């Protein structure tokens, strides 16, 4: 064969020196680098997604950390309430504490007289505060007639305002002296000795452009509609249809023209040099604090303005230095917290009557329709009962079933079938288990809806394949020599398995179980179908009570329109994730500690 070797043509120059890298080699190395970069960026993307997700949750949850309370003295007026210390506690509880609280606020802010304003004033306090006060007084009837300090929980919008969710009340620098006098029609004439409102005027005009833009966008949507109706007119088969579409088209045209006219009007106002500008509730809010109260500007020029009182102001003010000027950038119409409410909140805050305290209620209360009252304790307890049912079913059944399949089952068609079955069951979408629960446990067995019992059973069936598969793997990892040794000293097979194999496999089984339980704890979809999505205000006390669970609570809250629920949702997720992380950590520690290499 030597002859063949010697006749090999040099198909390519053989690499000479080891160190001399050819172009080809550099290309190959670049290809390798590319693959490496793809891999790293894939990991980067995964990590970035995780970070984005967790930071979203934590950032949002920050809003639920504190809640706002009124630390205001309350006069428990027996006359007003119509009860005395000797009344029956149930009667005391039904007394008009709501009215008492509202009366207190109205006395503090006597300017609030209109229906709308009074409602806004009452809305500073949570709808649940009067019940808490009632319960407190009913439990201590001796307090009646006294003046007590009882923290009243503020409403969700007040809390959001205090958090700065609607933006900050920006204090503007002022140089001039302020004069305010009342006009005949009740409005105020406001002026400064310097052009202190110049910047505010600029912002007001800028906001006009923003509004005009919004109107023009709406107009372009109408433009679209005009086009679509035009197409329909073309495609219409009967005269009737055609005239109908033509009418619609005309209507859209009218709307478009109106919107554009409005936008042009706003732009013209904004373009107009100088001059007083009207400040409506679609524009920024300009607030002045002076003379012991708050005013709002309704028309503004560089140095003078018209305005109205929000809270009582001592008039007239002449060339006063003691004033401050504030701008709230978010227009009043865009926030559920009016200028009046801002003025009241700021007044109370200045008097030291508002405090923000750590939100312990969130961890001790059950669900509520009011965000400031809602807590997760009910859901946590519901999750506990559900997991209790799940664990006590799935763990014994799963482990014992795995023992049978791994240690005792004869190799035949039926056990093969069971095995295929378990693998398939592991991949069945969780929502299908919900349908199973709905049809079998609620429909056929007539078990109670919304109960941890049914939820637990459904989740147990869902988790079962995971636990069987993990337990079998753990049992398989125990070397046959252990079984042989036990059988060799005369133990029966059952004894060999339960005395020797199972204890050795236990850490692995527990790890698998914890991971399965963690998955069950985070599961939502099947529980929606068996009614665990109901609104439940009481903490469940057993497995047949109505209950909800943490992930379902998250889902419910995320669906509510109140903005304050966003923070509650995120906070509930934090609690859920904490449980899951702890469970997973335990699993990892178990695995690390007992991992055995045979």
């Amino acid at each position, binding site marked *: *064969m*030597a002859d063949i*070797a010697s006749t090999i043509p040099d*198909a390519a120059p053989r690499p000479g020196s*080891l*160190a001399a*890298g050819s172009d080809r080699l550099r290309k190959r190395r670049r290809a390798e680098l590319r693959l490496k970069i793809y891999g790293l960026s894939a990991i980067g993307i995964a990590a970035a997604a995780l970070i984005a997700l967790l930071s979203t949750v934590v950032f949002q949850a920050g809003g639920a950390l504190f809640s706002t309370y009124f630390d205001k003295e309350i006069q428990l007026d027996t006359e007003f309430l119509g009860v005395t210390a000797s009344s029956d506690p149930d009667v005391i509880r039904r007394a008009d504490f709501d009215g008492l609280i509202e009366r207190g606020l109205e006395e503090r802010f006597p300017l609030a007289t209109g229906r709308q304003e009074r409602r806004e004033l009452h809305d500073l306090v949570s709808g649940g505060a009067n019940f808490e006060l009632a319960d407190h007084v009913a439990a201590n009837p001796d307090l009646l007639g006294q003046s007590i300090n009882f923290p009243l929980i503020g409403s969700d919008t007040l809390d959001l305002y205090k958090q700065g969710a609607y933006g900050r009340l920006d204090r503007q620098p002022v140089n001039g002296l302020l004069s305010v006098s009342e006009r005949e029609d009740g409005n105020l004439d406001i002026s400064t000795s310097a052009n202190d409102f110049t910047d505010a005027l600029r912002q007001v005009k800028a906001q006009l452009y923003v509004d005009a833009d919004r109107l023009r966008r709406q107009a372009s949507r109408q433009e679209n509609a005009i086009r679509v109706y035009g197409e329909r007119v073309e495609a219409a088969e009967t005269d009737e249809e055609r005239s109908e579409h033509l009418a619609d088209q005309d209507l859209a045209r009218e709307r478009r023209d109106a919107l554009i006219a409005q936008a042009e009007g706003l732009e013209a106002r904004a373009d107009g040099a100088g001059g007083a500008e009207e400040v409506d509730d679609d524009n920024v809010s300009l607030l002045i604090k002076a003379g012991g109260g708050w005013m709002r500007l309704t028309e503004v020029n560089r140095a003078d303005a018209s305005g109205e009182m929000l809270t009582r102001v001592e008039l007239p003010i002449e060339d006063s230095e003691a004033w401050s000027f504030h701008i709230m950038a978010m227009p009043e119409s865009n926030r559920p917290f009016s200028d009046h409410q801002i003025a009241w909140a700021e007044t109370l805050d200045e008097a030291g009557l508002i405090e923000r305290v750590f939100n312990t209620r969130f961890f001790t209360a059950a669900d509520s329709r009011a965000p400031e009252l809602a807590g997760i304790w009910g859901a946590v307890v519901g999750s506990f009962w559900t997991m209790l049912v799940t664990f006590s079913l799935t763990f014994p059944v799963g482990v014992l079933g795995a023992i049978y399949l791994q240690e005792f089952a004869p190799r035949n068609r039926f056990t093969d079938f069971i095995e295929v079955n378990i693998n398939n069951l592991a991949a069945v979408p969780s929502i299908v288990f919900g349908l199973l629960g709905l049809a079998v446990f609620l429909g056929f067995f007539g078990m109670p809806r919304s109960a941890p019992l049914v939820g637990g059973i459904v989740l147990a069936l869902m988790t079962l394949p995971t636990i069987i598969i993990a337990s079998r793997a753990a049992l398989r990892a125990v070397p046959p020599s252990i079984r042989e040794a036990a059988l060799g000293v005369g133990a029966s097979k059952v004894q060999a398995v339960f005395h020797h194999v199972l204890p050795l496999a236990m850490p692995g089984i527990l790890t698998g179980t914890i991971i399965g339980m963690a998955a069950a704890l985070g599961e939502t979809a099947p529980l929606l179908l068996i009614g665990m999505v109901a609104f439940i205000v009481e903490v469940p006390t057993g497995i047949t009570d109505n209950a909800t669970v943490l992930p379902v609570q998250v889902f419910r809250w995320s669906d509510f329109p109140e903005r304050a629920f966003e923070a509650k949702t995120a906070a509930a997720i934090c609690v859920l994730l904490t449980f899951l992380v702890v469970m997973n950590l335990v699993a990892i520690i178990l695995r690390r500690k007992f991992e055995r290499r045979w």
Partner: protein
Amino acid sequence: MTDVKIKAKDVQVYYGDNHAIKDVSVEIENNTVTAFIGPSGCGKSTFLRCINRMNDTIDVCRVEGDIRLDGEDINDKQVDPVQLRAKVGMVFQKPNPFPKSIYDNVAYGPKIHGMSRNKAELDEIVEKALRRGAIWDEVKDRLDAPGTGLSGGQQQRLCIARAIATEPEVLLMDEPCSALDPIATAQVEELIDELRQNYCVVIVTHSMQQAARVSQKTAFFHLGNLVEYGDTPKIFTNPEDSRTESYITGRIG
């Protein structure tokens, strides 16, 4: 004919904290079959894997010392292990054909190194490699059949052909016959003897008979040390070191 192909000096290998190879220095000659023998775990395979830097692929493994191929330091920073391995081919203990056709198994090396300009040239390279691997006659009619479908001995000769196809200068063989039956072993040994004409062959073997049959030079390793190195007949008939003697007479191993 006694030009030195590989020159190793004071080579140390560590697996984590384990000092696996200690102060090994050896000069391996071209166109010669050199056998590394020694009891299990003596480091002979580890040392073999240093010669084409296959130990780079093991995270915890650290190699020190100086190994030169034709006078060039193979552990130099400038050296790309890819290029080194093209020059120093390797055959493993267990036949490891790729799950591809016989043709693709052999053509793989030439393709990645760009050794052919067209299909015809590649065909030629493959045929030559298979001929030199002494397996051409058995597989020439089924080049498209999967390499994993061959018998153990055929698989190993396919792997040798695969290694030859990239035109290496050195061929490292890590117990190439340990997974083969006696007949296949005989065929492979015959092949090794023929390969000596063109290559520097280094073979790690467990079997002293095999070393005696195929090699001209023999190195005896014990506990990570190179105990004795010399002409094969001398090592087997008149060893200098008592440990070598104990090993070849079967007292340690």
